[in-house]
C-alpha cells in the first residue's frame, strides 16, 4: 500500500474514514453524518469442485469485509476471468452461486466485467453502508474486552486435504457450508449492542488477523486453545501434517508476535496459522455485552464462541 500513501495524503481526504493510514478490512468513506459507504473487493481461483458452491463462497468471502466493518451489503459487481473454452453451464453455475448469495445478503449485482484467462477466477467488488459512528475497525479492542468468534476454524486445512484426496467428503461438506455462510447475521448481532473492534478471519489465519487487531489496538489478545471451535476433521488433518504452504508462510510472518503455552504441540500451533477462507468474525466487546450478543446470535440462528480476552501489552498469547 506504500505507493498509495505517496500519492494520496490522508489529510487531503477528511471523509475517508478508513483506508490509507491505517489499513483495515475495507475502505470507508463518509457521505454525510448518517451514511458512510464501505468499498471492498476480493476474488480467487476455485477452491471446491462444485461451481455453484465456488461462486457462493467467493461472493460470501468478498462481502465478508463489509460485515467485518459492521456494515450491510448494498451493491455488487462481478469480477471474473474464465478460459475461452470453458463450459457455459459451469460459468452460469458459478455466477448463479454468487448472485444468489448477494440476494441472500440483501444486495444486488448490477453488472460486472469478465476477461479471458487460463485459470478461472471469480469474486465481487462490493459496496456497503454503515453509520459513521458505528464502524467496526480492527483498532478499538481494549484491555478487559472479551473475544468472540462466529465460525469454527479449519476450512483451510480441510480443503487442502481434499485437494490431496485425503479428506472425508462429510468433512468437506461441512467446511463448504461454512464458507458459503454469510457473516451478515453475525454483523447484525454485533450492531445490536456495544462492540470495540472486529475483523474477519481469512488468508492470514486466526493468529495473523488477531495480531493485526492487537497491533492496531495497542493491546494483547489472549486465546484459550480449548475454547477455539474447529470443524470436524481439522485437527485430524493437522495431526497428519496436511498443511498448505500458506500455513508456514503465516507462521514465518507472525510467530515472533505469538507466545504459545509449552504444552500446545507443533501441529496445533501450525493449525492456528493455517489460512482460512470466508471465515467468521472475530469481535472484541466489553464482557457485559456478551449475554446480549449471544442472545441476538441465537435469535438469528448464528453461532458464536467465547474464545479469549484482551489484556494490557502487545502481541498474541495462546494458552
Amino acid at each position, binding site marked *: 500500500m506504500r505507493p498509495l500513501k505517496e500519492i494520496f495524503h490522508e489529510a487531503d481526504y477528511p471523509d475517508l474514514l478508513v483506508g490509507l493510514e491505517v489499513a483495515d478490512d475495507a475502505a470507508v468513506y463518509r457521505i454525510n453524518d448518517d451514511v458512510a459507504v464501505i468499498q471492498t473487493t476480493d476474488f480467487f481461483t476455485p477452491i471446491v469442485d462444485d461451481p455453484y458452491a465456488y461462486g457462493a463462497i467467493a461472493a460470501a468471502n468478498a462481502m465478508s469485509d463489509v460485515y467485518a466493518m459492521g456494515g450491510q451489503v448494498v451493491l455488487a459487481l462481478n469480477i471474473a476471468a474464465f478460459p475461452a473454452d470453458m463450459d457455459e453451464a459451469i460459468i452460469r453455475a458459478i455466477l448463479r452461486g454468487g448472485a444468489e448469495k448477494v440476494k441472500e445478503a440483501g444486495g444486488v449485482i448490477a453488472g460486472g466485467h469478465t476477461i479471458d484467462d487460463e485459470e478461472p477466477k471469480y469474486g465481487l467488488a462490493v459496496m456497503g453502508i454503515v453509520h459513521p459512528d458505528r464502524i467496526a475497525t480492527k483498532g478499538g479492542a481494549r484491555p478487559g474486552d472479551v473475544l468472540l468468534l462466529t465460525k469454527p476454524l479449519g476450512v483451510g486445512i480441510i480443503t487442502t486435504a481434499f485437494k490431496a484426496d485425503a479428506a472425508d467428503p462429510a468433512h468437506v461438506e461441512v467446511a463448504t457450508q461454512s464458507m458459503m455462510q454469510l457473516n451478515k447475521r453475525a454483523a447484525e448481532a454485533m450492531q445490536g449492542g456495544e462492540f470495540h473492534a472486529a475483523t474477519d478471519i481469512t488468508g492470514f489465519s486466526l493468529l495473523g488477523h488477531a495480531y493485526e487487531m492487537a497491533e492496531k489496538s495497542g493491546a494483547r489478545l489472549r486465546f484459550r486453545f480449548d475454547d477455539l471451535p474447529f470443524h470436524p476433521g481439522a485437527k485430524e488433518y493437522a495431526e*497428519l501434517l*496436511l498443511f498448505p*504452504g500458506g500455513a508456514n508462510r503465516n507462521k514465518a510472518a507472525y510467530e515472533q508476535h505469538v507466545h504459545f503455552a509449552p504444552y500446545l504441540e507443533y501441529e496445533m500451533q501450525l493449525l492456528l496459522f493455517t489460512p482460512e477462507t470466508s471465515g467468521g468474525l472475530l469481535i472484541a466487546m466489553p464482557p457485559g455485552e456478551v449475554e446480549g450478543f449471544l442472545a441476538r446470535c441465537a435469535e438469528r440462528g448464528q453461532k458464536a464462541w467465547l474464545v479469549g480476552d484482551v489484556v494490557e501489552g502487545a502481541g498474541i498469547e495462546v494458552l
Partner: protein
Amino acid sequence: MSVQVDARGFSCPQPVILTRKALEKGQFPIEVLVETVTSRENVRRVAEKAGCRVSVEEVGNEFKLIITKE
C-alpha cells in the same frame, strides 16, 4: 537398497503424502528429497510420529531426509 521419494517440485502437502505412502510400505531406509524448509519440517514430523529416526542432509538448495526404523 533404499526407497527413493523425490518430492522436489511439489508444494505442501504433497511431500507429506508421498512420504506417508512410502512409510506405509514399510521398506527402510527411505530417502526423501524436498526443496523447502516447510516440507523438510513437515516430512520430518510425519516420520518421527511414525516412530522413525530422521537425519537430514543439506545438498545445495535441497534437503535429503533419511528415514530409518529401528
